[in-house]
């Protein structure tokens, strides 16, 4: 049962980490010297090494400053790129990729600034069928970053044989964008710079929130509802990264969701639609969909018993777009890129709370 649940719940996640086969074929032979850096490590240079990081699976030691950086799963590549390090390879993105090139817009913009597009684009790993161990090994990395991921212990053990691998610290898919930056940054010997990046994004959030005071303090439930089967509501738990981002945006997880999640270690639980009134304390219901979603929810005899649905205070994240990709697995680069459009969704929904 657990696997059926999480497989469905991974929808926006798994999709995002998969790649068009064509792309993998076209990415050609990327430069092996992609590890060129445009900034220097923390003031004490290489003296910060060896760095030892602890993940849920065990300890990983990075002996010296890595130059060839590979990343797997969703979004980890944004951290070295934001720190000025072009990875030798990273996972291609398919979920919410507007132009099907395997690279999401904010990542592409940052790579362009580093002159690492076109022929200099890093290798894109095709993760359609799981972690692409062979492709990763071929890039001969010094370190593999996966602070935000769903790696299994088996995956991690295999990757460790290729290079020291930084996995998720506490929960699969439960590393927020700040910790993703700090943990991955620490493995590169650039924790202080990562902290600066995080602080800068937090300042941007604060400025954007100042323009939208009604968002502050609203309670929310982040859900996924399959239009083909509205008998269950998928609810993302407080440990999920996308839920933690809303916390940074001044909102609060509804107490009903906290209670529903209990002490679970998974990022997603199901709630039967017959129990929809459990979510009575939710100011804004967040869900994936399109222009027809709100009307469909309001027409459903059980889902319309959620007060937020009845009054229309629903924030519909456009499914399969860069915006939904940027916010489902938020990173230090994707959050600023999405910030205004994302907050506008919540502002409109919060305005209807009354």
């Amino acid at each position, binding site marked *: *049962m657990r696997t059926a649940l999480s497989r469905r719940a991974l929808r926006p996640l798994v999709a995002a980490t998969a790649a068009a086969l064509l792309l993998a074929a076209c990415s050609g032979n990327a430069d092996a010297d992609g590890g060129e850096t445009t900034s220097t490590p923390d003031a004490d240079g290489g003296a910060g090494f060896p760095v030892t990081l602890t993940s849920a699976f065990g300890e990983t030691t990075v002996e010296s400053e890595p130059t060839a950086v590979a990343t797997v799963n969703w979004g980890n590549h944004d951290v070295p790129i934001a720190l000025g390090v072009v990875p030798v390879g990273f996972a291609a993105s398919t979920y919410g990729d507007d132009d099907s090139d395997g690279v999401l817009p904010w990542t592409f913009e940052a790579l362009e600034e580093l002159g690492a597009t076109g022929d200099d684009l890093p290798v894109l790993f095709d993760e*359609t069928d799981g972690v692409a161990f062979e492709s990763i090994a071929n890039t001969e990395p010094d370190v593999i970053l996966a602070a935000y991921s769903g790696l299994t212990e088996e995956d991690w053990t295999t990757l460790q044989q290729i290079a020291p691998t930084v996995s998720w610290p506490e929960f699969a898919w439960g590393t927020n964008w700040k910790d993703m930056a700090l943990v991955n940054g620490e493995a590169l010997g650039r924790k202080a710079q990562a902290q600066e990046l995080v602080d800068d994004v937090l300042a941007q959030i604060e400025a954007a929130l100042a323009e939208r005071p009604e968002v502050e303090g609203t309670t929310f439930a982040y859900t996924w509802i399959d239009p083909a089967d509205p008998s269950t509501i998928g609810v993302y738990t407080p440990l999920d990264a996308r839920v933690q981002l809303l916390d940074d945006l001044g909102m609060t997880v509804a107490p009903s969701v906290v209670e529903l999640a209990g002490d679970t270690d998974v990022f997603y639980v199901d709630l*039967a639609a*017959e129990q929809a009134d459990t979510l009575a304390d939710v100011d804004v219901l967040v869900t994936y969909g399109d222009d027809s979603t709100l009307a469909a929810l309001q027409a459903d*005899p*059980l889902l319309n018993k959620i007060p937020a649905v009845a009054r229309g205070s629903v924030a519909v994240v456009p499914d399969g777009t860069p915006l939904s990709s940027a916010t489902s697995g938020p990173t230090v680069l994707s959050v600023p890129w999405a910030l205004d459009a994302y907050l506008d969704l919540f502002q409109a929904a919060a305005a209807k709370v009354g």
Partner: protein
Amino acid sequence: MTLTATAGTPAPPSRVGPASLRRRRTLGLAACVVGVLLAVVASLAFGARVVGWDDVVAGVLHPDTSDIAQAAVRSRVARTVLGLLVGAALGLGGAVLQGLTRNPLADPALLGISSGASLAVVLGIMLLGLSTLTQYVWFAFAGATIAALLVYAIGSLGREGATPLKLALAGAATTAALGSGVSMVLLSRTDVLDTFRFWQVGSLGRASFAELAQVAPFLVVGAVLAVGCARGMDALALGDDVAVGLGQHVTAVRAVGALAAVLLCGTAVAAAGPIGFVGLVVPHLARTFTGPSHRWLLPVSAALGAALLLAADVVGRVVARPQEVEVGIVTAVLGAPVFIAIIRRHKVREL
């Protein structure tokens, strides 16, 4: 209870006298009817939400849909009807397939019908962007038909025609090939993979009256065709030569029976996704008291299938509150041990 008198002692069925058989059939049929009624009541009364009996009655008869308890009961009505239809279709379809192929292990999954339906739907989603049940039904039906014809054609190669063993082998091979086709599509198009998740585990959660109206005609036609083949299948059980001697048109019986099975099983897959074990187990359960006669076996299989699937769905709704377990998982968990028990007790009666 004459049932307990015969159960456990593997008395050869041929020794059972006509009077005793009649009594067993009558009792069995009565038990089926009671079982269906109990399952219906349970399906209306029990779910992820605990509701009072007054709300159950009101929700069925004159629901106040502003009240969530009664709205929940109201939604269970459609789900109950879908469960009855799909369960009956699977039980009936399984009995027809076993009768036609004289293969005690025949079921939609073995003969490529389920995987044919799945592949057609996945291709439809990928190439044409299907999203509604009406579209799924036609594609599933077409896919099931093509797969069934393919399996029959392959199984008929060679001198003896479509023997049970060759059909089973052809079905297994075709299922594997079609399954690879599905994987190939899904791995190259992850957006389709998302839409397809529903097809991997059967569920009754999408029931609505509008969708019931769309699938009911197919199931009615399939059921009528199946019952029309009952005498023909009785004759087939004696072997093709004897059946021809009895004046049966063997090829016609097989064609109509196969069409019935494809209609029933294809529609069930389209409406509720793949649900295993019902089509396989139900006819064996039914045969324990109907004997081999298809005029009894078919209606009893339909009733048993409906009761079993509905009961399984109720179990899935209440074991993990506030979550629900898909009925396809429950039938697998409940159906597997029952099936093993049947095999151990009866050594699967030769058909």
